[in-house]
């Protein structure tokens, strides 16, 4: 046991004396969560738009006021000629132009029908789509107010309700994903690098010619990173709760347990990577390419798994991150307990045992 503690102490020296790995350990999670939380978002805020009002009556004025009052849009300029539409887009001053037809108000009263053209800059299709939806929503709201005294026969009134994330905040989607990526990368990459470093510097040779058993070396390597990854997980959850107001509906304790499980899965993967790579460079490349890409693309973090081709859907099942994201979303957003996520937990547990068994089997007690 004393040997073991001595080994772990040595690992901590390595970590704290290597500024680069310290930076990866703690800088990356914070940077990523802030980046995803603030910069990469599907929500729109204060989008600059222009308005071309051919009508200039009370109705259009009311609509324009409503739009201006919403926090989503800010009216950058009023244009007067159709020809200006192209030029404001080209200058990149606005993302959308609202074009009210002539006699908008009168048409609405007389014909019960008036036209407004919403022109959006679709160089960024997601934003264009969102802008259109938001404008539509404001127009519909206005229409409702106009019609509130009139009853129309045969009317379908869809009542949509977005559960778990009623405001469709993208941060709710990113936090579980980012947390998964970071835990996976930090745990797997850092352990695989730290084990291959011993190989590269030749210290593994001395460790092998010592009474230390393979599992002592492996566990000794892993324990400091379990500890640091838990700190990371806590930092991420705190950041998302206090900065992005992300709710944690379920039990924090369960969230912690599941995170520890996933950390161990990733560490096991890291050990496995270290057994097949001879240098730190290789270990890093395998971790980045072999783990980061699948986690981003196939885990359901960004692209929904259900809309992938069948083959990719099947492949996604072997990615631990997919199951952890499901678990995270279930606990954080739905607030469910173990009875709803035992299946995913069991899958992660199985993968962990498999990876550990494989790496202990592949761990070389000699140089060849």
């Amino acid at each position: 046991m004393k040997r073991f503690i001595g080994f772990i102490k040595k690992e901590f020296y390595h970590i704290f004396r290597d500024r680069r790995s310290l930076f990866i350990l703690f800088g990356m999670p914070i940077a990523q969560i802030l980046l995803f939380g603030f910069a990469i978002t599907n929500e729109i805020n204060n989008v600059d738009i222009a308005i071309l009002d051919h009508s200039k009556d009370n109705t259009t004025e009311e609509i324009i006021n409503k739009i201006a009052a919403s926090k989503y849009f800010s009216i950058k300029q009023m244009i007067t000629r159709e020809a200006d539409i192209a030029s404001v887009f080209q200058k990149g001053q606005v993302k959308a132009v609202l074009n009210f037809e002539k006699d908008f108000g009168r048409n609405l009263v007389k014909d019960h029908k008036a036209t407004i053209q919403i022109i959006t800059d679709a160089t960024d299709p997601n934003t264009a789509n969102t802008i259109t939806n938001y404008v539509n929503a404001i127009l519909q709201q206005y229409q409702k107010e106009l019609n509130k005294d009139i009853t129309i026969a045969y009317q379908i009134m869809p009542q949509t309700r977005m559960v778990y994330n009623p405001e469709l905040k993208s941060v709710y989607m990113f936090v579980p994903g980012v947390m998964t990526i970071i835990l996976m990368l930090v745990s797997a990459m850092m352990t695989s690098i730290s084990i291959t470093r011993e190989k590269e510097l030749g210290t593994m040779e001395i460790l092998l010619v010592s009474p230390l058993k393979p599992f002592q070396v492996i566990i000794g390597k892993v324990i400091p990173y379990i500890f640091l990854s838990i700190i990371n997980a806590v930092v991420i959850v705190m950041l998302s709760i206090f900065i992005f107001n992300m709710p944690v509906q379920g039990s924090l304790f369960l969230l912690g347990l599941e995170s520890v499980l996933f950390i161990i899965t990733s560490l096991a993967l890291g050990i496995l990577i270290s057994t097949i790579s001879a240098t730190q460079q290789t270990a890093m490349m395998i971790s980045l390419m072999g783990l980061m890409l699948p986690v981003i693309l196939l885990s359901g973090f960004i692209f929904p798994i259900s809309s992938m081709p069948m083959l990719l859907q099947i492949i996604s099942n072997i990615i631990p991150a997919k199951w952890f994201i499901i678990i995270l979303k279930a606990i954080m957003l739905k607030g469910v307990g173990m009875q709803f996520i035992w299946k995913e937990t069991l899958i992660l547990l199985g993968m962990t045992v498999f990876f550990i068994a494989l790496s202990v089997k592949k761990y070389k007690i000699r140089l060849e």
Partner: protein
Amino acid sequence: MGISISNISKSYKNVKALQNISFDVKPNELFGLIGPDGAGKTTLFRILTTLLFPDQGTATVAGFDVVGDYKEIRKNVGYMPGRFSLYQDLTVEENLNFFATIFGTTIDENYDLIKDIYVQIEPFKDRRAGKLSGGMKQKLALSCALIHKPKVLFLDEPTTGVDPVSRKEFWEMLKRLQQKGITILVSTPYMDEAALCDRVALIQDGKILQIDTPKAIVKHYPKPIYNVRSNNMYQLIRSLKDYEFNHSIYPFGEFVHYTDSRTDFNPKELQKYLEAQNLSDIEIEQTEATIEDTFMELAK
């Protein structure tokens, strides 16, 4: 409790690193493995320290088989690889402490064994190992290899890249360790260090050329050997190479070691020949063969 090696062979892809090697190292012996780079010294060390499997043959270290009893060997030997293999980001003291701990001992427990060596680096005990000079690194590595009081010590080229003064000190330390009952197998490419061993094995291309005490090896040198010197070293070597009776010519410091192919060699004849080649200040005198001469002769 020594080392016994019988018929060990080892090949990498298409290189025969070791070919049918057999020799014994007696308990408490300081045994040298002398040979140039690529002779197979490191491979042999790795087989004996249980890091590699031999393709053929068997070996025991301190009575334990290198394949079957590898765990026992790992508890009982000290190994210092050729490349500096300590933690560069740990201080001198932390390194030593770490190796003491993983062998289940403490610095205090075996301090007397490493004292002579460690006192020399103790003033730098808070310095990171990576920032030490070559000689100090070797002293630290030796201390780490010794901290658990091994029965057998394996030192793979411990003095390569170390200054002459430190090299001399290092060998004095090995002598003292031997007096404390440790069997030592040391490899070196420096022939002058061979004379300091009890016995040496000359190894080249994976084959043992000769095994004996350094004195006996030198004594068995088959020919009288001469130190030759002149005003122009380069011209001297060229002239000797053109001399029809030459047997071997090796530059050796300020001299050339020369042997003649004839049994009735007369140095005066050679002197005349060299003078005829426009060389001056010529000195020719018989000298004693060194291990290097023997090695060159055997490796011919």
